[in-house]
């Protein structure tokens, strides 16, 4: 169960988010500039909320009350960035294995081998290429493989399909859904596309940018909406 109460004060607006969900894909939906990425960054530990609490199952990642702030590297939260953030000077294989010390998963308590993850994301044939030599869809698969290789407890995806063409997007949409079912960890996915929200979301949170954002006390309303999928 992922629980989060995040309050983050930014210049010109305040983000106030409450969410709790346990399985499937949670879609954070809202227009650009609504603070969706900030919420992901807070969950991942890349930004610090001004106050609130973030926990996954029995692990508390952040609590302003108890002065807990676990750094990103110890949270075991995977993150697929909007621009993929692949390391441009490393091959696909080096990218995918970056989070595995010693580059070998044997006897380290992982569920899946390196090859299994590469095969699942269909990137084995690309392993010696550099990110600059990949198409958008291929980059996305490598970013997914890299994040999933370390077998995180939660996966965050920031606009994972926005940079892709229509066909690639449709294929990857189906694959993402399937991936979540196989992996059985919660996904939190940010999008501003209504179609994507309907196609992927098991649960949806609307992040609405309050029109009264001039006031520092303005809060955005978050409405949990159970979606029948």
């Amino acid at each position, binding site marked *: 169960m992922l629980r989060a109460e995040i309050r983050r004060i930014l210049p010109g607006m305040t983000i106030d988010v409450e969410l709790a969900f346990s399985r499937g894909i949670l879609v954070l939906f809202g227009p650009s500039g609504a603070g969706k990425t900030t919420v992901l960054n807070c969950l*991942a*530990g*890349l930004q610090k909320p001004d106050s609130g609490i973030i926990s996954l199952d029995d692990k508390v990642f952040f609590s302003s009350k108890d002065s807990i702030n676990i*750094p*990103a*590297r*110890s*949270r*075991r*939260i*995977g*993150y697929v*960035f909007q*621009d993929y*953030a692949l*390391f*441009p*000077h490393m091959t696909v294989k080096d990218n995918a294995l*970056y*989070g595995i010390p010693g580059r070998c998963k044997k006897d380290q308590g992982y569920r899946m081998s390196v090859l299994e993850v590469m095969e699942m994301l269909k990137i084995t044939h690309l392993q010696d*290429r*550099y990110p*600059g*030599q990949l198409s958008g869809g291929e980059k996305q698969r490598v970013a997914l493989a*890299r*994040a999933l290789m*370390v077998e995180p407890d939660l996966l965050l995806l920031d606009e994972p399909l926005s940079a892709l063409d229509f066909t690639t997007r449709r294929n990857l949409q189906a694959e993402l859904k399937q991936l979540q079912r196989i992996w059985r960890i919660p996904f939190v996915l940010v999008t501003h596309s209504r179609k994507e929200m309907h196609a992927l979301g098991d649960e949806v949170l609307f992040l609405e940018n309050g029109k009264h954002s001039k006031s520092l006390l303005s809060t955005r309303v978050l409405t949990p909406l159970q979606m029948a999928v």
Partner: protein
Amino acid sequence: MTEPIILSLKVALIAVCIDFVIGIVVARLMARREFMGKNIVESAIILPMVLPPTVLGYGLLIFFGKRGLLGSFLLENFDFQIIFTWWAAVLASAIVSFPLMYQSAKAAFSSVDISLENAARTLGTGEIRIFLTITLPLAWPGILAGLVLAFARALGEFGATLMVAGNIPGKTQTIPLAIYSAVESGEEELAKRLVLVITVLSFAALFWLNRWSKEKIQGWKKGSENNA
């Protein structure tokens, strides 16, 4: 004639090594951190580039001289005096060339996409490994450019070196000082040869830097076309 050349190369290389270590640390901090008075610190770092070298030389004399803050400490505790040794030439060269190293390195660090470092963090990586495997390799072309420029500048250092290291043949007389002495004492031939040597050395460093940076850019482009 070989003495000043070897001394100059030795001084410039050690000065650049000092610039490298300090430059990397300072540039990295300045590229990623915001703090009060950052502009003041930054201006102070760049200052040696625009001040007359004699001002720096005078400052170093005051600081490292027998009665200087650090000079007296070194003399009393280690019986070591840096003024009028070739280490003083190293110090002067390192300080004068530091802004070149710092500016290139800072621009290089700033150009590394912060989301790459963040991606590494979410993969469970510690800060030192991130710096060594992501930040440093991606910033390397800019850092190398800074090193070459700093080396060329250190090689040509004259004013501050003269003030703190003196002009002692075989001990602290680098190429620029040897040229000055040769001209002063009417040894035209020696002066010409030394002028040729330092011009060729500096030109070679800059030429290599230019060619290398162009090849580097073309190499990246070519690589993606060949294999795509």
